Each structure stands twice: as C-alpha cells, then as structure tokens.
C-alpha cells in the first residue's frame, strides 16, 4: 500500500513538472515584458506554441541522418527523467533511492551531448558554431557543478538529494560560508546551462551571439516542440534543484499525508514564482556578455565551487 502511494506521488510529481514547465517559461517572459512596460504574450502562450508546433509538418534537411530525428526525443526523455528525480514538493520518492545528484548531472550531460551531435549532424555552419560553443560552456559548467555537488555531499554525508534536502532542513546546518559560495556557483551554472541572459539570450535569433538557438536552427514541427519542451523542463529542473537544496522549507517528507503534500505543492509553486521573478529582474538589468567572456564567468563559478569545498575542509577538520 505504501509503495503504491509512493508511486502515485512520484507519478504526480512527474506530471506536475511536465505541466508546470511551459507555464514557468511563460511567466518569466510575461514579467520581463512587464518590466519593460510592454504587455507581453499571455501566460499560456508557450502551451499554444507547443500545440501549434506539434500540428505542423516536419521539414527535414536532405542530408539529415537518423541522429537528427531521434535526438529531440532522447533529449526530452533524459531531461524528463532528471526532472522527475529532483524532489519538488515531496522527498523520499520511489526513484530517489536509485539516483542522486551525480546521476542528475550525468543525465543532463548526456542530453547536452545528444543535442550537440544533432547540431553537427546536418552540417550547416550555424549548427557547428552552436555545438562548439555549447561544448565550451559544458567543459567549464560541469566541473563547477560537480564541485558544488562535492561540497554539498561532504556536508550532508550523502549525494542523495533527499538526504541533502533533509540535512538542510535540520538543525546542524549552521551558518556556513561554503554553502553561500555553493549557492552562488549553482546559480551561475544554472544561468549558463539554461542559456539565460548574461551567457546567451533565449529571445534572440541574432546569429553572432546565439548558442542554444544555433544548435536547433534546423528543427521544425514536432521536433522543435519537443526540444522547446525539454528546454523549459530544464529551466524548471534547475529552479527545483536550487529550491530543494537551498530553500527546502515546506517540502513533505516520505510517507506524510495529503495535507503535507498540499502544503508542499503550495510552497513549491510559491518558490517557483519568487525564483522566476528574481530571474526576470536579473535578466532585465543585465547585458549579455561576449561569448569569450563566458569562460571567465564560468571560471568564477568553478573557482567558487573549489573554494567552497576547500573552506569546508578547514571547518570540518577543526
């Protein structure tokens, strides 16, 4: 019985992230438009875009191989699995015993690898540029992410998200400078991974600066819809990751009743709204940096992660 209940919660979480992801994207776009005193598209516009794209015909390049056709679904599937592993409103999910932070990093890394392959597949120059830039970002963002994971797991004594989240809610967290550094580094990595503004602009199609959009330039129809859905899922995943690691208040623990679950869902949505607002304000106030400065930006994130782990070493050994 308990297993069925847990499974039900897990499936509910999967459906929740799937349903909320485009809404989050629409919400951020709406706030950004409002900050510029424009009306902006309605909140539900991303859903309509996805529906429209699904109904459209797929235009394939002549020399596109099977990789090009399979890649969108693989990217979507890996991102969805990773998103379902992050506790959103409840910890102790059925899958969480099998997967931990490193598994999530690996899943996202393979999604990125597949997408970069697809960008190279057709052989256009833009796809190549996008893939090579994406790989440059990845080579710096992934070590930084792993350093953050090390810091957190050294502190909590586990790489499992559920136990890290439980530790962060517990009394023996204390006031630690390492955690602050890890949070800042995680935010920087999240900004870079999701192609948000200082690194890449999600709203532009200006050839010289785009990274993510350059890779998916050749996609159309339902392939594009699936990729767009995966991109908004990834954004939601990073929001949930930051929320469950650094703001774990209100998350229901394993085996709690329906009321706790409802509180969990409400607090999760409140956290998403607050995070989206912060991201929109930050993006409106910042200019995009040159591609060659991205390595400095991510190098700083890597440095913060390393430093967080080092400082932790001092405070633990004494």
């Amino acid at each position, binding site marked *: 019985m308990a297993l069925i209940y847990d499974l039900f919660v897990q499936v509910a979480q999967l459906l929740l992230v799937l349903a909320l992801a485009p809404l989050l994207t629409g919400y951020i776009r709406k706030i950004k438009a409002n900050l510029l005193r424009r009306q902006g598209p309605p909140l539900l516009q991303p859903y309509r875009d996805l529906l429209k794209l699904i109904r459209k015909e797929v235009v394939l390049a002549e020399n596109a191989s099977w990789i090009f056709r399979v890649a969108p679904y693989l990217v979507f599937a890996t991102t969805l699995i990773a998103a379902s592993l992050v506790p959103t409103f409840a910890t102790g999910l059925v899958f969480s015993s099998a997967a931990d932070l490193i598994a999530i990093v690996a899943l996202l890394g393979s999604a990125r690898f597949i997408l970069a392959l697809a960008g190279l597949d057709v052989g256009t120059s833009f796809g190549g540029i996008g893939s090579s830039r994406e790989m440059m970002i990845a080579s710096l963002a992934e070590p930084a992410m792993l350093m953050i994971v090390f810091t957190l797991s050294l502190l909590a004594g586990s790489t499992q998200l559920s136990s890290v989240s439980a530790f962060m809610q517990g009394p023996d967290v*204390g*006031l*630690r*400078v*390492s955690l*602050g550094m890890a949070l800042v580094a995680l935010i920087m990595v999240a900004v870079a991974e999701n192609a948000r503004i200082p690194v890449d602009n999600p709203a532009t199609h200006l050839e010289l600066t785009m990274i993510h959009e350059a890779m998916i330039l050749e996609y159309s129809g339902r392939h594009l819809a699936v990729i767009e859905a995966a991109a908004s899922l990834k954004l939601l995943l990073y929001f949930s990751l930051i929320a469950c690691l650094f703001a774990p208040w209100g998350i229901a623990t394993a085996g709690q009743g329906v009321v706790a679950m409802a509180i969990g869902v409400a607090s999760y949505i409140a956290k998403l709204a607050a995070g989206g607002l912060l991201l929109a304000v930050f993006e409106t106030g910042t200019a995009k940096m040159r591609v060659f400065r991205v390595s400095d930006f991510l190098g*700083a994130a890597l440095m913060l992660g390393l*430093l967080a782990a*080092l400082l932790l070493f001092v*405070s633990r050994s004494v």
Partner: protein
Amino acid sequence: MDHLSLDVAHMFAGGLVLVSFMLLYQDRMFGLLNIFALHAVVVSLSVAWQAYIQFAPHLYITAAIALVVKAIIIPVALHRIIVRLGIHRTIETVGGIGLTMLAGIGLVALSIMVMLPITAEAGTLTREDLAFSLAVILLGLLMMISRRNAISQIIGFMSIENGLILAATAAKGMPLVVEISVAFSILVALTVIGIFLFRIRERFDTVDVYELERFRGGHP
C-alpha cells in the same frame, strides 16, 4: 565557545579569502578600489567579532582603525590619484585570469595544508584564522606579481596587511602600540607610494611597471 559564534567567525574569515579572490578577478580600476574597501570592511567585521567572542575590548580599536584607515581613507585617496593620473581603463594582467585563479586556489590549498598540521595544539579559532590569513597574504603576493599596473600592485600590498591583521587577532591580538604604528606606517607608505607614482608617470608617461624594467638609464 558555542557553535554559532565559531560559524560566524568562520564565515567572516572565509569571506575575506573570497574577497581576495574578487580582487584577483576584478580588472577595472574603480571596481578594484570598491572591492578593496569591501576587503577592509570584512577584515574589520572579522576582528570586531573576535573581540566580541574573545572578550578582548582592545581588538575593537584595531577593527575601528582598519575600518577608518583602509575602508575609507586609502580608497578615497587612491581614487583621487587614479582620477588625476587619468588611468581608469582596464588593467592588463600577466597570463589569463583563469590561470591566476587556479594559482590562487593552489595557494589556498597550500596554506591550509601547511597551517593545519603545524598548529595542531592551538584552539579551533586560531588554527582556522591562521590558515585563512596565510591564504590572504599569499593571494596578496600573487596579486602583486600578476599585475603590471602600479596601482593594483599597491592594492595587493594593502590586502597583505589585512591578512596580517587577521593573523594577529587569531593570536589573541597584538599590542595596541604596534597596531597603531602599523596603521600609521601604512598611511605613510600610501603617501610615499602616491608621490612615487606621480614621479613614475612624469618620467615614463605610464604607471606600467614593465616600462621600468626595460629602462636602462639615459633618456626614455
């Protein structure tokens, strides 16, 4: 000593190391000055907190001196020097920023590995502060050798002095006379360096110290 006060001391000392890295990272003149002021504010907060938890009221004076001299007087004076020299442009670094950062991380690791074993008998706070202050001193030295602009070398020098203050507070504080004379010698150093900067500029039309190395007498 309870857990929270140690955690706060750790936070300030670790924050100081972080601000040292920000000094290494920053490559604009005025940004560098602001971060240097932040460095001094963090060191004085750290000293004040240790005065509070060690019940050592004379450390409050150290904190106040650090705050007034290094967070207000020196940045303002350097700001005026920079404006008068007309050099609010980007600093060139020797080697890339990434390389300098990696070297900095190595130095922090080194100072932790050196300090923790040799201070095994000392108290928790002392060990931690000594390790971090050595890291801050080494990072200041790294900044002095990785920059070619005289102003940023001065800032590296001043940040070394902040590390020394942290080390002194860890060892239950230094005598007040010493503290005051160090503060004044820093001010005197600033005056000398300021005059020197203008002399360099007058002679070479730049404050890039590489020009000095190339100079072998005669008229440039």
